[in-house]
Structure formats: C-alpha cells, structure tokens
C-alpha cells in the first residue's frame, strides 16, 4: 500500500520528532498500565485478605418468614412459619450435608460449626464474644489460626479456648489462664485459654473465641445439630455459583462471601472508578498529543500536499497517509508503553520492605495490556482524523503560489 509507504517515510524523515511523539504515547500507556495493575492488585490483595481468613460460602438454616406472602403460597408459607417458630434454627442432618458438599468439585475445605453469642467473664471484666465451636482437627480449615498463634498452642481439648490478641488484652488474659464463658442460651463453663492468635483482622482478633464442637454443644443447647457450615473453595470467584447450587441442592440458605462483605465491594467499586478516571485522562492526553503533532505536521507539509492535490491525487489518499501515521504512532507507542509498563510494574512488585512485604500491591499481569493497546491505537487513529481531513482539503493553488 503506497499510502502506508508515504506515511512511514513521513515519520522516518523527522526521527527526533517521531521518537518524542512515540515516547509521549508510551508514557501515557505506561501510566494507564501502572494504574490498572495497581487497582487490580489492590483489589486482589483486599479480596485475598478477606477470602483467606473467612468462609467463601456459608450454609445456614433457612430464615423464618423469609418470603413475602403472596396469593396461593400464603397458606403454605404460613404453615412453615408456624412450625419453625417452635423449632430451633439448626442443621440437623449436617453429616449428610457435609458429605454432599465434600463431593462437589472446587470445594477445598468445610467446617461444621456452632456459632453463638456469649460473654467472657474474668473477675470484674466482661467482654461480649462471638463463639465458634468447631471440630478441633478442622481448626484451620476456614481461618488459619494455628499459624497465627502468638502464644500457647492450638490444641483445643475438652475445655480449651482460643482468643485473639485484642480480646486477651481487654480481659487481661494470657495463655494457660482460666476464664468463664456464659452463653446467650444460659450455659456457663469455666474454660482455659490455650492460645492467643493474631490474624491482623480487627473483627477476629477482638471479638471471636474458638472452642471445640463438643464443648459448644451443651453450652448452646444443641445436642445433635450445627448452626452453620462454612465452606472454602479453590476459587473464591466461583462462590456465587457454588452458593446457588448448594442452596438448591440442600434447601439451606447459602451466602457467598461477597454478600457478607458488601463494604468491600463498595470500596473496590469506588477504587475502580478512580482508576477509570485516571485511565481516561491518560488516553485523552495521548489523543491530544498525537492530534497536535499531526496538525503541526500537516501544516508543515501544506505545500507538498497541495502539489499532490494538483496532480490529482485523491483526498482519500491524503487522509490515508495521515491516519496511517496516527495508526503507526499509536501502535508503536502502545507496544513500547506495554513493555515499559510491564517492566515498571514488575519492578515495583518485586520491591519489598523490611518485613518482606510488597509495599505496592501491584499485579503486573493485570495491566490491561490488550485493552490499552487497542484503545491507544484507536485513539491515535481518531486523533489523526482531524489533521487528515484538513490536509485533504488543502487548495492546490495556495500551495503552488506561496
């Protein structure tokens, strides 16, 4: 294609200017990639923090009167409501349910639990706690507790209790000391603090106490059932579909982790919007840069273009020459920017502080490379449309007479 040859020749005829222009575009692309990788990395880090320490899907007994009563269903639903009023909310058949869940592909761990509210009493000090009774061998299935112990050990035993550092501090407790647990079901028992953990999550460290399922049964007056089953998946991203499936298969209420962390979703969305704004501005600056450079180039080449018009070379050819220049600049700048953006992100991701943590949660592989390459190229072509059009309309006479 001859127009392409002319476009290339025009770009190479002033190498310094072209290099500057391509570098400018590449810089904009680098900013775009950096922001994208940072926002994505931040989302991954926040999500990981949540999904690493909490269940991906929680199964609970269906809520009472969860449905709005409509027409024909009214009678039936009311019947259910009447029955359940007298029933304890629990999962009785938890063993068979657990078996069913274990067979599902993608499920990596599960933990049947008795959860309830209680007070820890130590002398004059009283603290409300959220008690989780679980199978001792599954202590770390949902929340890694053992690796996060700061004192004591993770063996729960018959009267053992594990609490977070914050709670331990509030009550003045240390590993090995006794403490009284009083549940909202009226159960009361003297337990021993076996270990103190620190997960870094405020809600866990200040409000949760772990004990064994067997210890929890009499305290919460649940001789057979459990109150909830917590599930961990290989891929937390599939939580919603797994929850939907399990809700259908078990008749229980299944809640994916996202719904228990609506704040997180809001925060991620707000972050995403900020990122989009910066991405948009970097694209706009690319478009303006390319447009102004080509407007200047079209102006400098007025007489050349005019003479081409005098020989009867079509306006379409002139348009093609300038738009192809835009395309080449966009492609070159985009590719260069992708390389430098990836380099920058990889470098920043490899940095570590004194504790060996990455200060910037960058995900270099999530830089939006294909998107930015396409957008930059399109943007550069778009930017060249105006100068191309004005060049194609140059009056040959003006060019000849000057």
């Amino acid at each position, binding site marked *: 294609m*001859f127009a392409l040859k*002319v476009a290339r020749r025009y770009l190479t005829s002033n190498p310094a200017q072209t290099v500057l222009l391509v570098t400018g575009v590449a810089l904009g692309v680098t900013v775009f990639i950096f922001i994208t990788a940072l926002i994505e990395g931040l989302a991954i880090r926040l999500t990981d923090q949540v999904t690493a320490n909490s269940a991906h899907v929680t199964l609970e007994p269906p809520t009472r009167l969860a449905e709005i009563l409509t027409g024909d269903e009214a009678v039936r639903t009311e019947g259910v409501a009447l029955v359940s009023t007298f029933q304890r909310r629990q999962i009785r058949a938890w063993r068979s349910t657990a078996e069913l869940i274990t067979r599902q592909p993608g499920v990596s761990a599960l933990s049947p639990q008795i959860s309830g509210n209680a007070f820890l009493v130590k002398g004059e000090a009283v603290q409300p706690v959220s008690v989780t009774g679980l199978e001792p061998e599954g202590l770390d299935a949902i929340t890694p507790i053992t690796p996060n112990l700061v004192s004591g050990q993770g063996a729960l035993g018959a009267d053992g209790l594990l609490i977070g550092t914050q709670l331990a501090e509030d009550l003045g407790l240390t590993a090995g000391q006794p403490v009284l647990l009083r549940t909202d079901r009226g159960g009361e028992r003297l337990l021993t603090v076996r270990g103190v953990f620190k997960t870094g999550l405020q809600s866990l460290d200040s409000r949760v106490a772990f004990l064994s399922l067997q210890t929890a049964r009499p305290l919460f007056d649940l001789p057979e059932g459990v109150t909830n089953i917590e599930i961990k998946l290989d891929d937390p991203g599939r939580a919603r579909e797994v929850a939907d499936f399990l809700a259908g298969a078990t008749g229980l209420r299944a809640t994916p982790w996202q719904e228990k962390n609506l704040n997180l979703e809001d925060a991620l969305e707000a972050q995403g919007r900020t990122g989009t704004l910066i991405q948009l501005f970097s694209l706009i600056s690319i478009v303006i840069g390319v447009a102004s450079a080509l407007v200047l180039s079209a102006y400098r080449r007025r*007489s050349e273009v005019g*003479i081409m018009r005098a*020989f009867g070379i*079509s306006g379409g050819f002139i348009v093609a020459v300038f738009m192809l220049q835009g395309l080449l600049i966009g492609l070159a700048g985009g590719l260069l920017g992708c390389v430098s953006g990836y380099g920058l992100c990889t470098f920043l991701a490899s940095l570590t502080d004194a504790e060996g943590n990455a200060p910037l949660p960058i995900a270099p592989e999530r830089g939006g490379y294909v998107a930015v390459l396409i957008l930059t190229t399109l943007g550069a072509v778009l930017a060249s449309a105006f100068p191309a059009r004005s060049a194609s309309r140059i009056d040959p*006479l003006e060019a*000849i*007479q000057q």
Partner: protein
Amino acid sequence: MSRVLQARGVVMTFRNGDEETEVLRGIDVALETGELVALVGASGSGKSTLLSILGLLLRPTAGEIEIAGQRVEGMSERARAAFRNQRLGFVFQFHHLLPDFSAMENVAFPAAAPAGGISPEMRRRALSLLDRVGLADRADFPATRLSGGQKQRVAIARALMNKPDLVIADEPTGNLDLRSAGQVLDLMEEVNREDGGTFLICTHDEHVAARCSRRIQLVDGRVQAQDEGSDHRD
C-alpha cells in the same frame, strides 16, 4: 491534428468583499495536439490565472472549456482531480518535489498513489523518463540532493509520467540560471518533437517564447493576437 484544448469566453472575476477584479474578460484559446505554445503578457495580466483555470485548479466565473474532447465545467471536484491525474501534467516555477522521496519515486508518484504502489512497469517508465531528462544516474538520489536545474527536470519527468494530453507549465525556467533554463527548454522541445506532447508554457523569458511554435499574448484580460512564433524571432 486534433484539438487538445478549446476554451471559449473564459471570464474570471475575483471578489474581495465589495471590490471586484475582472482579471480575464472573455478568453478564447485553442490548442492542437503537438503544439508548443507560449503564453506571454505583462505581470498581472492574468497568465497564471488562465493556466490555473485551464489546468482545472480554479473554476472560472464563466466560459466553456473542453480538454481532450471532454467538457470539464460540470465535473465534481473528485472528477476534476482524477482528470488532472490522467490527462494533465504540471510544471511550476518551483519544482515542488516531495523532499522525502527519491527522484524515481517523485516521478512515479502521480501513477503510484492512485494505483496503490509502484509497479515494475511504473518503475521502468519513471526510469526511462529520468533517462530522457538526463538523470538516469540520479534515480535513487533523494530529491533534496539534486541541483535546482536537476530538480526542475525531475519535475518535468513527473509531469509526463501519466502520458498527459496537455502539459501546463507556469514559468518553468523562472527560477533557473541560463544554462539550466536552456536544458529544461531543450527537453520540452524534444518531448514535443519526438512524442508529440502538447505544451502550454507561460513565460516572461523572450528566449523561451521565441522557441515556441506559437505565442498567445494576454493584454488587459484579453487575448491580443495569435501569431506564428516565427514572426517574432529576432
């Protein structure tokens, strides 16, 4: 001999606000194939304006123009551009070569751009034209590295690339020294004699006008006399 150009009653009036300048006041011109015609007249008499109109670069206020048997007044801009490309060749006072291309590429350009590339056949023609203007050894030189006279000869080769019916030249030697001007004129004469190319050359140079077969003199926006060139040789 067939008629290449026939213009009748060409009027050109420029308007600048309320001010009107009537530059051409009814011009009749006819050119036969193979003629080498000089267009002469005082500065400001309208020579360049007439050439622009005959070269389809400017639309006249009135008048009929027929080139190579085709009426051109009603043509769209696109059709006029295509017509210029296929039927007309231009040489201007300044060479207007494309600085980023070689001599050969400059010559081939008017054919290559519409076709989408320089075909081997175009290349051969461009090289033979360069040979004809005496620049075979400069084919791959960038246009910027040629002398003024060489550039103008390349411009003539470019004007001939698409085998035009008519070559319009506006002071083609105006910017050259005597020797280069002589070479350029020799060349046009040669092409005219050997290939039967038709030339309309506007000039201030009496030497140039004298070597043309005929001259058209513009005075006060009208054609004064159409004499045999030989009558004016001194």
